[in-house]
Structures are given as C-alpha cells and as structure tokens.
C-alpha cells in the first residue's frame, strides 16, 4: 500500500469512528434505536462467529447467555454500581459457558447443535421456576439512569472490544489452532493442539461477550421477564446474520447484521404477522445461495499465519530405549484387537510392524499416539508413561504420526497445516523451518495451496511434514507408502531413509515388503492381535509362521 492511500484510509477510518461516536448527538429516537439494534446484533454475531465460525459448531445458545446477562442486570441493577453489574454478568456468562462447555464440547458437532438448541429453553425454564417459586413473581422492573445515548456508547465500546479481541485471537496461535480443529479435530490433536481446552476457552470468551451485551441492553426494556430476555428468535437472528455476512472472517458478520436489522425493522413495521415466514424464507435463501456469506463473494482472505519458526530437531542419540511398549492390550467389547504386545525402540532405528489386514497394527499405533486408550499394559516414551494421556499431550512429548486414511486439514493451506503443528511445540530447537520441511518432502512450491487441492501423494507428503513439524523424537507412519505408484514409492523410500539418516526414529506399519527390507533394522509381525515373530526383516519374512499368517497354513 502506498503512503497517500494509507493516509486516506486512516482518515476515512477516523471519520467513520467519529460519526459512530457522535451518532446519538444528531440521531433522533427512532434512528438511535436502530443504531442500538445494529450494534448489539453486531456484538452478538461477531462473538458467535468467533467460536462457531472456525469450529463450525453451530451454536443456538446465544440467547441463553444474552438472557442470563440481562437477568443479572435486572437482579443486581438497582443495588450495585453499574460496572460491578457488568462484571457480574460477564462472570455468570463465563461460568455457565464453562459448565455447559465442559460437559458438551467434547461431543461431536451434531450433538452440540442439539444441545445448544435446548440450552436456552432449559435455562429459561429454570429461571421461570426460580422466579415463581423463590422470588414469587415472574417479571422484574429495572429502573436505571442509563439513557439511550449512554446505552449506545456502552454498546459501541463493547463493539470495539469484541473486534479488538477477535482480531487478536485471529492473529494469535489460538486462531490458527481453532481453524485446525474445525478442519480436522483428530489431526489437530495429533499435532499437539489441545482441542477441548481451546474450544472451551473460545466458547467461554464468546459467551462472556453475549452475557455482557445482555446486561448492557437490560435497561432498554425497564420490565424484564424470561419471555423477553430469553426470546429464542434472537439466537436464530444472530445465526442468520453471521451466516449471511460470512462467519469465517472477523468482519463478515457485521456485513450480515446491517442489512438484516434494517430488513427486520421494515418487516415488523409493515408485515408484523408474516414476520416469521419472511424470516424463514430469508434463512433458506441464504443457506441455499450464499453458503460462504456475503464476504465470500469478495473472496476475502482469512488471517494467514506466516509460515516460519523452527522445526524438526534430530533425535538425541542414546542407548536407553526411546519407546518401551510392555504388554499392551486393547479390547473392543469382546474382541481383543491387540493382545499383550511388547517391544522397544532404540533411538535412530526404523522398526517395521507388518502383518495381515486386521491383525491389530493400526490399533497398536492408535494406543501409542493416544487416539485409543490401551486396556492394559504400559507405554513409555523416554521414561514417561503415556498411558491415559490425551493425543495432544503425547504429540507435544515428541511422538508424531501420520494416518492410514490420510488426514490433512482441508481448509487450511499447506503452510498453515505445518504451522498448526508448531503452535504448541514445547521444544525450541533450532531445526528446520516450515518451508524447509516442505522442501524436504517436496511441497516447497505448493505452500499457499489449500490442502484439499493436493493430490493423494502430496497429501501424504504434507502429513509427513506436519508430523515432522512437531520436532518429534519418534514418528509413526501408518501405511505411508500404500497406494503409491512404483516411482513414487522409490521417492518415498528415499525420503524415509533420509529422515533416518538425520537421526529420526521411526515406526512404520507397512505392507510394502520392499520398503520394509530396504529400511527396517528390525521387524515385528502381528497376527490376530499378538506378535508372532520379530527380528531382522529377511529372517522374519521367511519364518514359516509368518508365511502361514499371510498365505494361510496347511492346518489353518
């Protein structure tokens, strides 16, 4: 951007800000009320999109937090100073979000929608019950000295805060982490991202804004009852507005708020009886025609995190086993998929795990990486017991993996996929940067490509780069070579050999025996959940038990 343009933009921004701040001075009652509506929906929709945009957890609970804030103001408004009331509302919203989030955010998307769908109803019923049985009257009057002008300025201030926080969140590592979770939660966890905690944190943040908005808005009504404070239409309107504008970006929702607030205003004035029919038709229209919102029409970019930072430290050499697996079993109700498997891995070696399909190889890897919890046995990585740890904790300890069915984060670029794995890295070695890693796997030229556009082998390469970005001590490759054509296979084998030469320790599950022979110093053969042979590849592959397991024995 050139100097004069920048100055012009700043001037325009300042002028806009001045207009917004002085608006109550020249707008009359009706237009001031309209301004208030635009502002409070802007805060609600932006706060909604802060959580629901990147994670795609469609929350219909906006009004639950909004209403709680309004009720907090109604209860405390006449006895406490106003800032304390706002703080209390923020606290109530955050606490409720924390409790409900803790119990539900680990559930997958669809359950969350339904949960939030009922949360507002549930809280409304509880408030009504409390008011009827304990307070002995359903409505409350709130007389306060807050004029419409002051209310407007409070909302304007809150709007500024919500945008500032949203902007900082988007720039911080939590912003990218949140998008990684939205793209593929499993892959994100295995990249060291604590999905549950980050989702919970942002959910609480978003709910806090909603609750404070409710408190700020409370004096506007004078009389508050649960039907007003917990009016479910608000939740729905917020969702449509954010979706119309585009929930994927910070300034998207406001683009939906302005036209829809004006439209609703016109509708309530001209067609009060048909309001909800028109609302519904608009909703259907937006989802059918504008899936990415208005902002999607302009192709507005999201926050791009610059690829960079250190990555991939070579493994520390040493004689002590890096990984010690001792008597690990995993049962699914009756089926023992992994049965008493023990082995150790010394630093710098490549271990191959082979065996027929269904012999428990991937299940074993899943127990190592924390995707599954072993039913019994212990797993130690450099002396630390991994049993019971969650995937992101194991990833942060330096155990990275790829998946048999390749999992990239489709909406993120190639560089962002790798950057996501570096977000919460605890080791700050001076290894390769993200772009060096991508060069290493041969994706150097595709850094800005969305991961979903990559070919199958490139997605596999990306997964490997992402695993390496964790600066792992140990990498688990789950059939990383499967499905490659002969020349790709050669490149792939060479790449793994190169990683070994850099000192990386690798466990590979593989059906490509040429690769096992070429790369592995040691092999484990599994059949029906147990280890049936172990040793050097050549010896193991000629073992009659192994041949029988693959081809079927005479007596099998």
């Amino acid at each position, binding site marked *: 951007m050139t100097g004069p343009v920048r100055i012009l933009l700043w001037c325009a921004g300042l002028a806009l800000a001045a207009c917004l701040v002085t608006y109550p001075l020249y707008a009359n009652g009706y237009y001031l009320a309209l301004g208030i509506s635009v502002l409070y929906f802007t805060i609600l929709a932006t706060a909604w999109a802060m959580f629901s945009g990147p994670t795609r957890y469609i929350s219909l609970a906006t009004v639950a937090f909004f209403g709680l804030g309004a009720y907090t103001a109604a209860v405390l408004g006449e006895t406490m100073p106003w800032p304390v009331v706002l703080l209390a509302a923020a606290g109530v919203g955050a606490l409720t979000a924390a409790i409900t989030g803790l119990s539900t955010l680990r559930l997958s998307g*669809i359950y969350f929608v339904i949960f939030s769908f009922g949360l507002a109803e549930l809280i409304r019923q*509880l408030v*009504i019950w409390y008011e009827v049985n304990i307070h002995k009257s359903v409505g409350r009057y709130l007389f306060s000295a807050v004029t419409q002008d002051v209310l407007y300025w409070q909302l304007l201030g809150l709007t500024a805060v919500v945008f500032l926080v949203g902007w900082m969140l988007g720039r911080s590592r939590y912003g990218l982490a949140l998008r990684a979770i939205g793209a593929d939660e499993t892959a994100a966890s295995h990249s060291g991202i604590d999905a549950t905690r980050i989702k919970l944190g942002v959910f609480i943040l978003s709910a806090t804004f909603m609750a404070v908005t409710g408190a700020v808005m409370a004096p506007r009504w004078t009389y508050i009852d649960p039907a007003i404070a917990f009016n479910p239409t608000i939740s729905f309107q917020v969702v449509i507005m954010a979706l119309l504008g585009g929930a994927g970006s910070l300034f998207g929702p406001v683009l939906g708020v302005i036209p829809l607030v004006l439209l609703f205003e016109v509708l309530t004035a001209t067609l009060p009886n048909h*309001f909800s029919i028109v609302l519904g038709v608009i909703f259907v229209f937006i989802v059918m025609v504008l899936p990415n919102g208005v902002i999607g029409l302009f192709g507005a970019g999201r926050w791009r995190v610059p690829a960079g930072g250190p990555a991939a430290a070579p493994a520390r050499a040493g004689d002590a086993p890096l990984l010690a697996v001792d008597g690990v079993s995993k049962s699914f109700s009756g089926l023992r998929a992994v049965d008493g498997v023990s082995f150790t891995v010394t630093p710098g070696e490549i271990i191959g795990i082979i065996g027929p399909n269904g012999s428990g190889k991937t299940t074993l890897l899943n127990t190592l990486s924390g995707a599954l919890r072993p039913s019994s046995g212990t797993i130690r990585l450099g002396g630390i017991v991994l049993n019971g740890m969650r995937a992101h904790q194991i990833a942060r300890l330096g155990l990275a993996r790829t998946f048999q069915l390749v999992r990239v984060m489709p909406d993120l670029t190639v560089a962002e996929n790798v950057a996501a794995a570096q977000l919460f890295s605890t080791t700050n070695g001076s290894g390769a940067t993200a772009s060096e890693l991508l060069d290493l796997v041969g994706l150097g030229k595709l850094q800005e490509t969305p991961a979903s556009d990559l070919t199958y082998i490139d997605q596999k390469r990306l997964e490997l780069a992402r695993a390496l970005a964790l600066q792992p001590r140990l990498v688990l490759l789950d059939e990383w070579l499967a499905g490659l054509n002969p020349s790709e296979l050669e490149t792939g084998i060479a790449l793994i050999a190169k990683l070994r030469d850099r000192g990386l320790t690798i466990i590979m599950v593989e059906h490509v025996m040429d690769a096992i022979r070429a790369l592995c110093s040691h092999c484990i053969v599994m059949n029906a959940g147990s280890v049936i042979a172990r040793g050097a590849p050549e010896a193991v592959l000629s073992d009659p038990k192994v041949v029988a397991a693959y081809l079927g024995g005479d007596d099998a």
Partner: protein
Amino acid sequence: MLLVDIILPGLVLGGMYALIALGLTLQYGVARIMNLSYGESLVAAAFGAFSLYGGLGLSPLAALLLAVPVAMVLNWLLYRLLLERLMRRGKDRGAQEIDSILVTFGVLFVIQGAMLVAFGGQYYSYSYLSIPLTIMGSTLAVNRLVALLFAALVGGAVYLALTRTRIGTAVRAIAVDANAARLVGIDVAALSGLAFAFGGGLVAVGGVLISMFLTFNAAMGVVFTMKALVVIIMGGVGNVIGALVAGLLLGVVETAVARLVDPGLTLAATYALFLGVLVIKPTGLFGRAAS
C-alpha cells in the same frame, strides 16, 4: 395409586414420543437430514386434525387417512426441491448435517409463521373420546389409550417394513453406509427421498394422535423436535428399539417430574436426562461404541 398414576400416562406419552422419534430417525438416519422443522410438521398435523374435526366433523382417526398422504407428499417435495441439493453440495457428512439443520431451521419459521397467521398464538384442543376409564385405580381417558394403540400399530408396521421387506432392507443399508449402498445398486437418492417422506408421514400420525388428548399451539413445535431428538440420541441414532425404550423412559420420567416436582420443570428433566446419557454414553443407550 401414585405409581400407576405415573406409569400409565407416562407410557402413553412415551409411546407417542417413540413414534415421533421413529419418524425423525428415518429422516436423520437414512436421509441424513437433521430436520429441525419436524415439530412444526407435527403441530401442523394437529391443527389439520383439529380443523377437520371442528369443520367437517371428521374423526381424527379418519383424518389420518388424509393427513398422512398429504404430509408424505409435502415432505417428499421438501426433500426433492431443497434438501437433495444440499446433500449433493456438502463435502462430508458434517457439512451436510449443518446445511440441512440450517435450511430446516428456515422451514421451521415458515411453517410456524403460517400457523400463527392462520390460528394465532392461543392454545387449542378438542374433545374426542374423552371418556374416563379407570385402570388399576388410575383414571385415563379413552382417547389416550386409542392413541397408544394406534402408535403401537403404526410403529410395529414400520418396524416390520424395515426389517422384513426388500425396500426396508435397502433403506437400512443406506442408513449404515450410503456410499456402500450405492455400490450394490441401491438408488440412494430415490430411497432417501422415500424415507424422508415416510418420516414425514409418521410425524403426521403423531400429530393427529397427540391432538386427541393434548392442548397445542402454533409455537410449541420446537418442544416436540427437542424431545424427538433427545429420544433418538438416547436410543442411538437409527436404532428402532432404542428409540422405543428411550421414548417410554422419557415419557415416564417427564410424568414423574411433573407429578412429583413441578410441571414447569419437565423440559429441564428431559434435558438433564439427555445430558446425563450423552456424558456417560455419547453414542446413546444402545449405540455402538465409537471406534
């Protein structure tokens, strides 16, 4: 006797819930549409039965013969005109679910708005077969028993159709894996539409039967959607027997809470039960363990 007072009406209510949930599980499990306008369809059917009874003196049971085909056609059109497009557009099941939730949300408002225009916000009920009957010291209206009987008949017929016929088997195959079903020559699009329409027909049955003994208004559809969802999730998605048990359980728990604690807390009880099941067994009471 208090226990019978709770159990009997609880079972009647629960039977209704199970029937309603059965329709939703067809729509969600097979057609992969999380239909949030489901409860509105139910209330619309209730209003239909009310109008036919009040206007033409048609008995609700006869009204079923009209309501079910109409509901099926309307649901089929909804699927063909709107939802199928979303199914094709969605990249994965998650995206499809979210899109379908959002669109049916819009449909919810359209139906609700139309009912508000036609009937206003007040509560309606009519008196049909409201003859008291005493069973084991507990009084129950005949219409409730008739409703329960019909729900059992319809539910049983659907269960048999799903498990004993070719089309039913194909429909269940789609519920398990739509892509695999396509590979073995099942016309997934057509059968999904059919299952969706069938689900719509079932909810019409539920609406007509419920109108015989409950008061209803234009705004209460959401509550029925909620309860049907709770039943499905508790029972395990796509699990007919699970829906039956969860429905009955919900009916009894609600009646017990209304009777023993406070009628205003029934939804809270539903919700607590739902949350409890989700937290302890996320795949439902009878769901398979997630892999």
